[in-house]
């Protein structure tokens, strides 16, 4: 990870992501927050790319920026009378304190732990050409059971969303 391109990309994408997260926290409008959230997601996809995770990066764009953000758009649109502001709750100070504390703890642990990590040429050597086929083999090989469970989870997620939001036909006319 010494090539200047990677270093530059890492700092740029980190800046984008962190700035996006910050704007989500401070922006006053929910839709603005959503736009900055998408920005953070895209920056995160860039960070994934610097980690040679091409498939995950593209999946991140597809799932987070493309689907979950649109899902949030629908949720915002389906709650028309609710406030569109991104206001803070009563517990804003404790929440921020908790957030800073967690960040601090993770940062402390990250900096102070002696990680057994690759550096230099060994790292370059391990750079895979593509991750797709390996991930595919793992998913239907070693991790096939979690894979199936995940599909069941998705199915029930789908089912649950439908059941929750489904409006019975008679309900609307009766009230």
């Amino acid at each position, binding site marked *: 990870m010494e090539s200047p391109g990677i270093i530059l990309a890492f700092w740029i994408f980190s800046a984008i992501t962190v700035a996006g997260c910050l704007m989500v926290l401070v922006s006053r409008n929910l839709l603005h927050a959503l736009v900055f959230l998408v920005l953070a997601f895209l920056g995160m996809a860039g960070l994934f790319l610097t980690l040679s995770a091409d498939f995950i990066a593209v999946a991140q764009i597809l799932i987070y920026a493309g689907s979950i953000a649109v899902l949030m758009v629908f949720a915002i649109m*389906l709650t028309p009378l609710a406030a569109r502001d991104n206001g803070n709750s009563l517990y804003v100070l404790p929440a921020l304190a908790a957030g800073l504390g967690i960040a601090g703890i993770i940062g402390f642990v990250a900096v102070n732990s002696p990680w057994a990590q690759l550096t230099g040429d060994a790292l370059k050597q391990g750079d895979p050409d593509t991750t797709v086929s390996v991930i595919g083999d793992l998913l239907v090989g070693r991790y096939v059971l979690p894979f199936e469970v995940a599909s069941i989870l998705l199915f029930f997620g789908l089912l649950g969303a439908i059941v929750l939001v489904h409006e019975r036909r008679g309900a609307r006319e009766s009230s």
Partner: protein
Amino acid sequence: MPEGLSVTLVHYLAVSGLIFGLGTGVALSKRNAVAVLMGVELMLNAVNLTLLAFSRFSSAFAEGEEPLAGHVFVVFVLTVAAAEAAVALAMAVLVYRQRETVDLDRVNLLRG
């Protein structure tokens, strides 16, 4: 490039920690249910970054044993995030139908 500038695991972990903290802040401090969900998604994203960074920098990556197990975990996290987002947003819409608000401070059915 001087040695001190190279990007290491610690950099990624620090960024990930920062994002996780911000996500926690968003999730805990916002009133709107959708905004809370945004915070949760950011936290999940931070975890994904950690997993990928460990996967990339671990010695197993180079030696070929357990290659990309971190990636597989990220795939599962993405799956769970998608399912969770769908259900949570459906619940937000449902709460809105019942109470005409998605302000979590005012959703207090159990308080009586």
